[in-house]
């Protein structure tokens, strides 16, 4: 009847990763397989295509730099979504938080401060985090205290953020750079720029920040009371209430932390890559971050791997286009197929759980996602 499944061996981190990685790995293989079939029908040898993709992504120093650069915002965005998942929330607003964080860190990055450069950088990064967290304040409050689904509100705020930033960089608004040919802010101060890791590449330390943050968040979720509470509320808010947890406050905090990471994702794009704020500088990273978190099964270490996978796809795609003539948008198709297979394989190991929330009225959507067992 109720037979226990796992042995009592203490499962190390790697083991956890492997166990929770099962379904996504299968999904990735299926996606690559189906895409190979498509490539074949387009008249190209799939092996050649994938080889060129890999070469482009990791076969050279500039390639690897590009991969890391592409992966960085996906990593931080993936962390944002994954933390939200842990707390039972679906943060679709990473795009908007990204813009908010970018704007905030641009502003702070333009201000000359009487502090050592490294401190200026840290303050700027913090500003990015705060920007994203504040952008999540309204949806967080509405969800925690008024039972309004965070999905629609964060989705709407994405566009508000995009337009807001657009206004900021157009003349005659705050951040507009005089005399520029398109709407952009002035360059941020050198002290606010993220150090480059490898000379003459664009590889900025945003990737280090991302990896460090992933580990830190993993530790936070696993080893702090805040993390435990987050998981409790994410799995079963009613039981958490019975155990005396302030579910509303916890929900709000989790969404704001999640937003903060979305803000960081935007901050590093500015501080590391572009060094100034543009109109529409992000191409839908927020939604890809959801895919990243999904492929990682909301596991915070797995997010690193998933983000790199996407980074490889994006960085290698242009080489693939040049060498074998398969358009770069193929990588989008591979990404999409990977996600589709993950959710189509759904009711096997990890499950997407939907849960009733009797305590909430005007709810239009509620989703919770549990990580791998």
């Amino acid at each position, binding site marked *: 009847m109720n037979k226990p*499944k796992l042995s*009592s061996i203490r499962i190390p981190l790697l083991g956890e990763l492997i166990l929770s990685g099962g379904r996504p790995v299968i999904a990735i293989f299926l996606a690559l397989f189906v895409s190979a079939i498509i490539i074949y029908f387009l008249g190209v040898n799939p092996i050649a295509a994938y080889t060129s993709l890999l070469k482009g992504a990791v076969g050279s120093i500039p390639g690897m730099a590009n991969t890391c650069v592409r992966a960085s915002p996906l990593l931080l965005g993936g962390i944002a979504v994954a933390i939200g998942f842990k707390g039972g929330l679906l943060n679709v607003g990473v795009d908007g938080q990204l813009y908010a964080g970018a704007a905030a860190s641009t502003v702070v990055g333009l201000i000359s401060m009487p502090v050592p450069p490294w401190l200026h950088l840290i303050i700027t990064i913090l500003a990015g985090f705060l920007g994203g967290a504040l952008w999540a304040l309204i949806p967080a409050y509405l969800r925690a205290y008024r039972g309004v689904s965070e999905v629609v509100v964060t989705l709407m705020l994405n566009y508000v953020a995009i337009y807001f930033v657009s206004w900021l960089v157009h003349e005659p608004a705050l951040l507009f750079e005089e005399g520029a040919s398109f709407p952009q802010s002035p360059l941020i101060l050198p002290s606010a720029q993220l150090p480059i890791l490898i000379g003459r590449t664009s590889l900025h330390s945003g990737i280090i920040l991302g990896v460090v943050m992933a580990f830190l968040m993993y530790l936070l979720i696993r*080893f*702090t009371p805040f993390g435990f509470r987050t998981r409790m509320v994410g*799995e079963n808010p009613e*039981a958490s209430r019975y*155990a005396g947890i302030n579910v509303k406050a916890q929900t709000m905090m989790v969404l704001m932390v999640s937003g903060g990471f979305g803000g960081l994702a935007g901050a590093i794009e500015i501080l590391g890559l572009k060094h100034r704020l543009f109109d529409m500088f992000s191409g839908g990273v927020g939604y890809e971050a959801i895919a990243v978190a999904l492929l990682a099964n909301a596991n915070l270490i797995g997010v690193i791997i998933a983000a790199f996978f996407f980074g490889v796809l994006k960085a290698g795609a242009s080489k693939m286009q040049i060498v074998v003539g398969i358009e770069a948008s193929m990588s989008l198709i591979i990404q999409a197929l990977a996600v589709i297979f993950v959710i189509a394989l759904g009711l096997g190991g990890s499950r997407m759980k939907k849960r009733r929330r009797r305590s909430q009225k005007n709810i239009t959507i509620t989703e919770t996602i549990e990580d791998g*067992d």
Partner: protein
Amino acid sequence: MKTLKDTNSIEYTMEMVGITKTFPGVLANDDVTLRVKPGEVHGLLGENGAGKSTLMNILYGLHQQDDGDIFINGRKTRITSPRVAVDHGIGMVHQHFMLIDNLTVLENIVLGIPPEHPPFLDLNSARTRFKKITEEYQIPINPSTPVWQLPVGDKQWLEILKQLFRQAKLLILDEPTAVFAPSQVEQFFIKLRQLTEEGCAIIFISHKLDEVLEITDRITVLRDGKLIGTVTTNQTNSTELAQMMVGREVSHDRKPRPPSVEKKEVLVADNLCCMDDRNVPALRNLNLTVHTGEIVGLAGVDGNGQKELAECIAGLRQPTGGKVSIQGKPITHVTRDTSLLGYIPQDRHTIGLIEPFTVEENLVLKTFDTDPLTRRGIIRWRSIQNNADKLIDEFNVKTPSSRIPVRNLSGGNQQKVVIARELSGKPALLVASHATRGLDLGAVESVHNILLHERNQGTAVLFVSAELSEVMALSDRIAVIFNGEIMGILDAEGADINLIGELMLGHRETVLNTMQN
């Protein structure tokens, strides 16, 4: 008592013969036979989990039986879906309303009925028919009202009207009087008799013995999935029925009490009033005290305020009047102080445990952020594991590891995890709500022993249960709750089960009279 209608050639309007149905891990119906005569009101009795709902869901086509046959008017019938059931004149009124709040009464009535001139939704002819039926049974419901505006009693009527609209000849009513006030129940029964006089047969599912005795012609009792027997109503009484439902002789097998300790008040509920989820008063000036080293059993039919009382004590529900305190400390919100209160909720699956969490995690839901489980802001998993090992040993929880998800454990062991957690802080008061529901006999025995052990150690225990025999065997004192009030408190030693039964039904005067004689 009404006389049975004359039957012509068909003796039974519906027969379920030898029905067996298994769900994963549960034998819900074990060779059950139920026969209903035309125009009769047939009661279906049984405790929660006895198999009544499953049997009726099979009759209504929501499930298929594994074995056994169904006969409608003598002809063997396979009921593969609710639509088939409806075509055969079977109508079911569920325990939970199957009404769509945002639609109107009329829209709910016609939902699922194929339109006469598809695709048009012809509400007008439906409205006329509806008005005729409401007039015939004198149930004034406006067809244009959105359902969410209807009072609860009207919603119940609407469910029944839905079936009458579909010309049901066999009505299954699942706990229909749950939402009625006593005065409304009388009205309801009058109309039920009207229905049967028109040729409708009714299966009346309830666990309210007095109502079943009043309205039915015959009664079938189920227990643990098996058929216990079918009796004629005017040849039986509540004691016999209760025993059929519960199955055991009231055991006067009482455990010896330790020598008398100084009794201090632990739980004090003082004129406690509160509302339930439907904003109906659940507790009315309830007074109750539990002392150290005693088990107070709260006896009563499900739904008389037990859940709300437990929640008020746990701080999960705000009283609207009066107050409740533990060891003198007033309870205003949920406390995580495990030295004060241990609360075993009645729904361990959804609120007692977090099912995907491991055993060791579930054991620390209230204490994970305290020393020694957390020091300097870091959770120490080794301590959590040690804590789990200790509790697993102490409470004899059968699990191969503390690190497996708690949902993999058997029901009895899951309950032990809840109990172990709640008792781990050695609370002054333990509230156990339906702690043995759904457990097998061995597990029930374990839980009882744990409770008795606690009592012997000096813990105050409030034991809520709908199983009277259990309450009587375990308690030192028995408080009977009815309609949100304590009807009476008796010493368990030498208590008369019939007296308690009367109090459970709210017949306080009868009891007083008896006691005076």
